[in-house]
């Protein structure tokens, strides 16, 4: 990956900008695809969702259980559960900006910009703190 540091005189993206742009786009598209797939699977596995008013209320109010941790999502995926596929898609979406930060750290290191590599690493640590705080019950 080449990193250009010269000032840009048109709106041509640098290599880093192109990489970040592609990463964001791929993350959003693959997440949306998983979410749509998961929703379709959910309705195939629960045909009564097309007619039961009571089940609609339970789903809205969160009375129907759904996975909220990575191991639970993986377990649900092995059983082919629709809501686990949806949750996997949502996890891909949450991971997309986090990966973008990781890519930025690498780019700053290649530019030998220690200060910004440090700043970006701090952002990554804050994001990882969020994931661990959440698990503790928040």
């Amino acid at each position: 990956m080449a990193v250009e540091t010269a000032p840009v005189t048109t709106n041509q993206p640098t290599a880093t900008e192109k990489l970040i742009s592609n990463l964001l786009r791929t993350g959003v598209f693959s997440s949306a695809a998983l979410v749509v797939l998961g929703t379709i699977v959910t309705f195939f596995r629960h045909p009564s969702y097309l007619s039961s008013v009571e089940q609609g209320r339970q789903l809205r109010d969160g009375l129907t259980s759904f996975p909220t941790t990575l191991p639970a999502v993986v377990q649900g995926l092995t059983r082919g559960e629709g809501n686990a596929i949806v949750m996997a898609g949502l996890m891909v979406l949450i991971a997309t900006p986090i990966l973008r930060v990781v890519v930025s750290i690498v780019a700053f290191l290649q530019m030998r910009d220690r200060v910004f590599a440090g700043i970006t690493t701090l952002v990554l640590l804050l994001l990882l703190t969020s994931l661990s705080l959440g698990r503790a019950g928040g």
Partner: protein
Amino acid sequence: MTPALFLVTVFAISLGAGLLGSLLGLGGGIIVIPALTLLLHVDIRYAIGASIISVIATSSGAAATYVREHMTNLRVAMFLEVATTTGALTGAYVAGIISGRWLYVIFGVVMAYSAIAMFRKRHQILGPVPPDRLAERLNLHGDYFDEATKEHISYRVTHTPVGFVLMYIAGLVSGLLGIGSGALKVPAMDLAMRLPIKVSTATSNFMIGVTAAASAGIYFARGDINPFIAAPVATGVLGGAAVGSHLLGRIQGSAIRVIFVLVLVWVSAEMLLKGIR
């Protein structure tokens, strides 16, 4: 409502919210949350959880385009993300311990502010940009190519510490309410730090994804992200925003904007009432 009908309704509402949000320059979240809670009686915690997911989707989608067009100031964004993510962590944590009533009240106030902020006059002449040692030290100044005027514009950044504090507040609001809070981020960069408005918008969008990811992690583990609600909200808002960005150049009528804003103010009053009652 059957699950199928509920799903279609939420998707349609989110599509409309994403469309309206992108036309007004607000995020979809600030519209989708009151729609879900007031119209469909969704628990505000699930509405916020679904909204924060949609915020990541729309901001990442838009950021992908802006970054490619070299509009985003990556250095300013990365530096200020330290403040927004810290704020988002605080906000998402606080949201879990205060009562839902307070969430309605705070949401009503922030929504009214965002609606009114759209109409404040922008001061074109602000005088010379004062020197800022931190901006020098971090080399935050930038340049971009303006497609509209076909000009290459260099700009200098100032008041970095003020911007940093304002970004903490923007992150706090984002984490607390599950919205992107671009209405707070853009003025912090545009008015305080003196970035050009187009760069401010692009950079705000870029930061919103990371800010939202910080609070989404907490919401996810807490069980506030209900897949049954988040799936149609995320896909709907994303689709609506994509359509809206294509229409943006064609719709300029300020009368339509006034009507939209009045509706927003009215909805924010409804949210306040729901919290106070």
